[in-house]
């Protein structure tokens, strides 16, 4: 089975800045693939390389087995793209922009377009300049979803959408997946990726730091345990895989490596459990583990733009 997207050791530099640094990404047909990373990690650069808008310096990038730079036009017939920050033409209406994008891609389904306008509560007769951020985002989402394509590339598509619209967006993506489409969903909204994606790739400073199913990644994470025991639990601190241990008035709290969870819980049980709360790892923690203590000042500053392109 040929992957829909395959990037191997891709390097892209802007002068002395390495936006992608031997980056790897594989997306298989029919999967909704989460693409996670903090601001400025290189998500948008990777997507622009896939779209043939940027030429990478070295490594191999493949889209449907083709070259995203040389075969851009042919490949684009099979995909739709939703940028993270949709800029509309101030003089065109939202409806005109949807049609232009859809038809240049090779046509859109007017029935689906009308249905999506309805679902997203979108008025297509207003001029581009007068739309709010969320409504501008809807233009690109509606144009993409009403096209008949095999792949959807979405770069933080829901930024600016209200929670109600976000739920509708999630429904739409699930329908697309059910219809057999492949989706690459870049995000830093973790719960959205958790809800929609079976596999994720995490990028940081231009490098792939983790890639796999959520299941696989959870093995790498820690589960939080809070328990009250009949006998003192102080000795638990010496067990392998236990971290961030604290004991307060018979109430013990610690994190445990998920693959050591079984032996540790047996030990807790041996102390006599009065009360036990265990929380599964969330993607927040997954993120925190990769970036936790080492978030650079730059990443903390949360710049709006992904990369600086002059």
């Amino acid at each position, binding site marked *: 089975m040929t992957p829909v997207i395959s990037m191997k050791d891709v390097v892209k530099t802007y002068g002395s800045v390495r936006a992608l640094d031997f980056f790897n990404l594989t997306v298989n047909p029919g999967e909704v693939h989460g693409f996670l990373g903090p601001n400025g990690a290189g998500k948008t650069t990777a997507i622009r390389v896939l779209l043939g808008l940027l030429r990478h310096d070295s490594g191999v990038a493949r889209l449907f087995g083709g070259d995203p730079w040389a075969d851009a036009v042919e490949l684009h017939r099979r995909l739709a793209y939703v940028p993270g920050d949709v*800029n509309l033409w101030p003089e*065109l209406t939202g409806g005109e922009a949807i049609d232009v994008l859809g038809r240049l891609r090779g046509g859109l389904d007017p029935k689906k377009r009308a249905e999506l306008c309805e679902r997203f509560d979108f008025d297509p*007769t207003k001029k581009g300049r007068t739309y709010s951020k969320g409504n501008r985002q809807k233009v690109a989402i509606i144009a993409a979803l009403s096209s008949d394509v095999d792949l959807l590339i979405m770069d933080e598509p829901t930024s600016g959408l209200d929670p109600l619209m976000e739920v509708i967006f999630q429904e739409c993506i699930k329908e697309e997946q059910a219809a057999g489409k492949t989706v690459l969903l870049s995000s830093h909204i973790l719960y959205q990726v958790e809800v929609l994606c079976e596999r994720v790739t995490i990028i940081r400073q231009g490098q792939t730091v983790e890639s796999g199913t959520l299941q696989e990644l959870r093995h790498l994470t820690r589960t939080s345990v809070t328990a009250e025991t009949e006998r003192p639990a102080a000795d638990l601190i010496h067990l392998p895989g236990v971290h961030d241990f604290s004991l307060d008035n018979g109430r013990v709290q610690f994190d445990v490596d998920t693959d050591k969870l079984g032996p540790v819980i047996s030990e807790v049980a041996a102390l006599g459990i009065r009360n036990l709360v265990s929380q599964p790892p969330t993607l927040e923690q997954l993120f925190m583990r990769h970036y936790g203590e080492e978030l650079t000042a730059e990443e903390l500053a949360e710049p709006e733009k992904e990369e600086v392109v002059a």
Partner: protein
Amino acid sequence: MNQFAGTGTLIRFILRRDRLRLPIWIVGITGFVLLFASSLPGIYATEADRQARADLWDNPIANLMRGPGYGLDDYTFGVMVAAEILLYVAVAAALMSVFLIIRHTRREEETGRLELIRASTVGSFAQPAAALIVVSAAHLLNGVLIATLLPVVGEDMAFAGSLAVGTGVAATGIVFAGVALVVAQMIEFGRGAASVSAMVVAAAFLIRAIGDVQGSVISWFSPLFWAQSMRPFVDERWWPLALAGITTIALVSVAFALNVRRDVAAGLVRPRPGKANASDGLAHPVGFAFRQLRGSLIGWSIGLIVLGIAFGSTIGEISEWIADNPEMAEFVAAFEGISLLDSLIGFLVLILAMLATGFAIPAVLRARAEETAGHAEALLSTALGRSRWIGSYLLIAMVGSAIVLLLGAGALGVLSAIDQNDTNLFWQIIGAALAYVPAIWLLIGLVSVFFGFFPKGLAVPWVVLLFAVTAGLFGDLLNMPGWMYNASPFEHVPELPGGEFTLLSIVVLTGIAIGLIILGVIGFGRRDLQSV
């Protein structure tokens, strides 16, 4: 006075943002005046040389293109500055106001940046007031530099005359700052506001052209006449400055009155709902680019038709003058090598061709604006290839500039043919215009190459056009050497009507132009897309 709160801070902010732009305008305008004045004694060494030049220009053509020509009977270097270039220096000052004022008012509003500023402790008048103050101060500095330096670098230039030139240019600039400020309140988009303001400048040029040819009071309705009306170096009069002052106060009052009555980011016309669906043409790359350039194409077409009519209606005056002054006409014709009427028509068609380039260059640059705004990213991630996308803008620039030029030349041709009762003249004028099309395309090719390979250097084609205009308007006056002339594509076009038609030069120019255009498209296909 709360409405002016924050003006001081905004003035400093504008000065910081324009720390390069403002000096370039000031050095450019002052430098041109000083360079021109200092080069005159070398070219026109004797009084006889100067007087010959004055006689050459004592006719309606000169009135049309250069102004009323006060003091031609004693053609000193000072009078030469006032009679030959002052009008164009005033136009440059007017355009400086238009671009700077719109940049700091409507453009700021359109991008939403003003919203951010107005949300702090800043009054509603602060932004327009700051822009007006900075631009006016720049014009005053310009005036002071001209007034003080002209007597130093020029020969026999009295301070009074220099002061009249300096204050006249500054006053013209400040009046048009007021015009742009009013337009900025009415038009929603920065691009449109700049176009409308520039059209006001063009209209002012035409009004004084008609007035100066007729020698009538009509000229007074154009602020571009006021600097020359001060008669620098002849017998200076200062009251036109008061006229400029009163006009500016009136314009600024109107602008502020409109400003308080409207919402931030709004124009005079309320936005109405548009079409929910795109037309078929819009979903085609050429149709899409045409939609964006349609307004500009219509504007330039109307502008050149009006100019063609204005030029054409002076043909009658000029042939009358030739009939009244046969010896003088013969003298001028002998100087030019072809008949006076032919030479005039050739010159007018050159002006039209240069203006048509004024449509062509921004038409291609629109693609660059689309790229940096991120619009191109959305379009190019569909099944639209890069060559077809940029090719659409290039195609419209090429065809559009030819249409604009032919419309202007057609208007000129019809009026000339009627006046001279000579149908042939119409076709001669159309032919002369067609001969300029490859030169315009050459500049489009230059833009294409810069877009494809050096998009940061896209100001260069403008510099080339500015140089070509200078060579076309002042080359003979400045005795420009041949190699400098050759740098302008417009000088490689056969001089029609009257001159010899050389197919070779047209073929070569067209070939180079198309080669450059294709080269640029190839370059764009190989570079990264640059968006924010």
